């Protein structure tokens, strides 16, 4: 079974992903191709939506922007096995310069997993930070969590929900003041205080 990814976010849908997925499933059946269509989120390359990706041994191969009328020619070009001859083929997704030059943190899993599959989330390091945090006897720093701050904060056992919000907001404020982008790898360490949460930020690269 070959996994074929077709996004289901607003922009992909606006560019015809729903019809594409339905017609591709029908065509695969007609041709006896054994594929599983996974509806992922967008990789963010909206000019290529709908971006169809096929899982191969070398990584995912991307085709885009794919319209329903391209389905036949994609099958003819053996896209199910990552065939590179189709004019819409963009090569390995991870090698597309727009993606390759990015370091994604909060969006690290966007487009990679099936967003409604908890198994998929866990297979991609989901809940890892949370598990680590849970075992920690002292309230740990955000650094240790390595999950999006808003997710982590909501579940912190030692903090009531209201201070959880404060925790996130304050972090955002500090980051803004330091003109630090969220995509810049930043080491965040809490400065201990009984009354005020403050954070020390240092760029790690």
């Amino acid at each position, binding site marked *: 079974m070959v996994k074929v990814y077709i996004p289901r976010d*607003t*922009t992909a*849908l*606006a*560019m015809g992903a729903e019809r594409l997925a339905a017609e591709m499933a029908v065509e695969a059946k007609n041709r006896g191709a054994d594929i599983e269509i996974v509806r992922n989120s967008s990789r963010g390359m*909206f*000019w290529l*939506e709908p971006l169809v990706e096929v899982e191969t041994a070398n990584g995912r191969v991307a085709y885009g922007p794919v319209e329903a009328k391209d389905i036949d020619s994609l099958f003819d070009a053996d896209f199910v096995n990552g065939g590179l001859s189709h004019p819409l083929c963009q090569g390995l997704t991870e090698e597309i310069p727009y993606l390759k030059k990015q370091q994604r943190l909060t969006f690290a899993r966007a487009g990679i997993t099936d967003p409604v599959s908890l198994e998929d989330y866990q297979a991609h390091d989901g809940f890892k930070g949370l598990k680590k945090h849970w075992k920690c006897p002292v309230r740990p720093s955000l650094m240790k969590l390595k999950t999006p701050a808003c997710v982590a904060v909501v579940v912190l056992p030692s903090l009531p929900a209201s201070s959880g919000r404060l925790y996130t907001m304050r972090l955002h404020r500090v980051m803004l003041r330091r003109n630090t982008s969220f995509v810049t790898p930043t080491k965040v360490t809490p400065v201990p205080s009984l009354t005020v949460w403050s954070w020390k930020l240092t760029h790690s690269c």
Partner: protein
Amino acid sequence: MTAFNEQSRQQVCDIVEEMKDLPGAMLPILHAIQDAQGYIHADAVSIIADGLAQSRAEVHGVITFYHHFRTTPPGKHTIQVCRAEACQSMGSRQLEAHVKEKLGIGFHQTSADQQVSLEPVYCLGNCACAPSIQVNDDVVGRVTPSKFDQLVDQLSTQALEVK
């Protein structure tokens, strides 16, 4: 669209009763009524006002402040054309002119056969693939006049099939 009969009145009363204790209940109530009935009938205003212990003028003020809320029945399909910056920079004004000509109506109007209502909208969040329109619940990106004509033809074809 149906008139404001006893059933519609009961539906509004049920919605108000169910949601009136929410913090900031007015907007959720208005949304629920419009989602259920397609618009907010003038007779619903006093029911909402009574339920929320506010004046009819206050309810009317909220309904007329937000363009999303309508006080007349919509056509069978609603088409929204984005008029925000990204779409304008990608030619939505020309598209808008074409849409009005094709449908023979302006914004906030419904075609004579009650098939299509045309509404402006200010950003559908699909700027990267502008110009965008929304047909009922579906956003459509990079709309050209010919793509728009196809969409409208599909809508009318579906309508014929129903008959």
